[in-house]
């Protein structure tokens, strides 16, 4: 077998399968269904940001009615914490929309890699911008509450376990999802 045979096999091979397109139906699906579907995805993706936005006025109201200085401080810290979360999520997500499919393969891979690195770094630093500030606020609110010392200790332990689990999930995603993908792109770019 030679190169010419290969080209021949390649170019006629697909003739066993035929694609039929109902053009009118396709245009309807692309204009209506696709738009509706993408709006749904967008709404879901912005859920974390919406929650953080809602938490800001709620934290201000709760801080106003708090029964101790520690609780006031805890609720007050939620405001800069939410702003930080919104900033971090928006900063990374704006890069996702910039990736376009009409550029050359090398540029596409480089851009995809940059985005993945940004997203991975966000997960790697989750301890500092998500977990520790949230734990600090929650601990202050807990310490400032009227609960008994035992209840406060139990609440704190539960919170630490929950936040440790979130941290573990993020590290796992970095190791199992992001690092292999970035390695794969690197090898495609350097090959």
């Amino acid at each position, binding site marked *: *077998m*030679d*190169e010419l045979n*290969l*080209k021949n*096999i*390649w*170019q*006629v*091979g*697909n*003739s*066993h*399968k*035929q*694609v*039929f*397109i*109902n*053009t*009118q*139906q*396709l*245009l*309807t*699906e*692309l204009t209506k*269904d*696709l738009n509706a*579907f993408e709006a749904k*995805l967008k709404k879901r993706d912005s859920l974390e940001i919406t929650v953080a936005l809602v938490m800001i006025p709620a934290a201000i109201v709760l801080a106003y009615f708090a029964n101790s200085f520690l609780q006031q401080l805890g609720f007050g810290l939620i405001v800069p914490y939410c702003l930080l979360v919104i900033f971090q999520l928006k900063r990374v997500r704006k890069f996702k929309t910039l990736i*376009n*499919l*009409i*550029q*050359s*393969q*090398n*540029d*596409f*891979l480089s851009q*995809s890699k940059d985005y993945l690195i940004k997203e991975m770094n966000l997960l790697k630093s989750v301890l500092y911008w998500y977990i520790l500030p949230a734990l600090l606020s929650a601990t202050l609110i807990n310490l400032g509450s009227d609960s008994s010392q035992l209840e406060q200790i139990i609440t704190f332990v539960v919170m630490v376990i929950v936040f440790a689990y979130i941290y573990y999930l993020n590290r796992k995603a970095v190791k*199992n*999802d*992001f690092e*292999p*993908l970035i390695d*794969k*792109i690197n*090898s*495609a770019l350097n*090959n």
Partner: protein
Amino acid sequence: MTDLNKKFIEILESNKDLILRICGAYAKDATEKEDLFQEVTIAIWKSLDSFQGNSAISTWIYRITLNTCIRLSLRSKNTKVETIKLNSIHFENLQEKADNQEDEIQFIKLQTCIQQLTEPDRSIVLLHLEELPYREITSIIGISENHVAVKMKRAKMKPLTCMNHG
């Protein structure tokens, strides 16, 4: 139908066979191949506004098709593709053509050989089999013509060896 819609249908109809061929080199099975085809269709639709006519339409189609296939092949195992099902696109196996079993077997074998290649060798081999000139391959892959020539020399031997001895 608007001019843009007409243009889209025209592009899709005249390039559907090549899109399906390329998708086959990235898909594990027939279902995945059809899913990839749908994804490419959506990608073409979404990118249509950005087609300036600065490059040849074929270069544009190959770029979108390859980048879409690569994007989906790069996703992690746990990530599902979130997309809509386009019921307007149907795939049929043609009975009269299916009589020629040998062609089909050879084609599937070649697809398997190509799937074993890593990027950018896989794309370079695909574009070579599509008989694209070096200049166009250069523009699609985004590396210099000399670099393509060096890679091509090495890459095109792999499916040949695979078909002859694999």
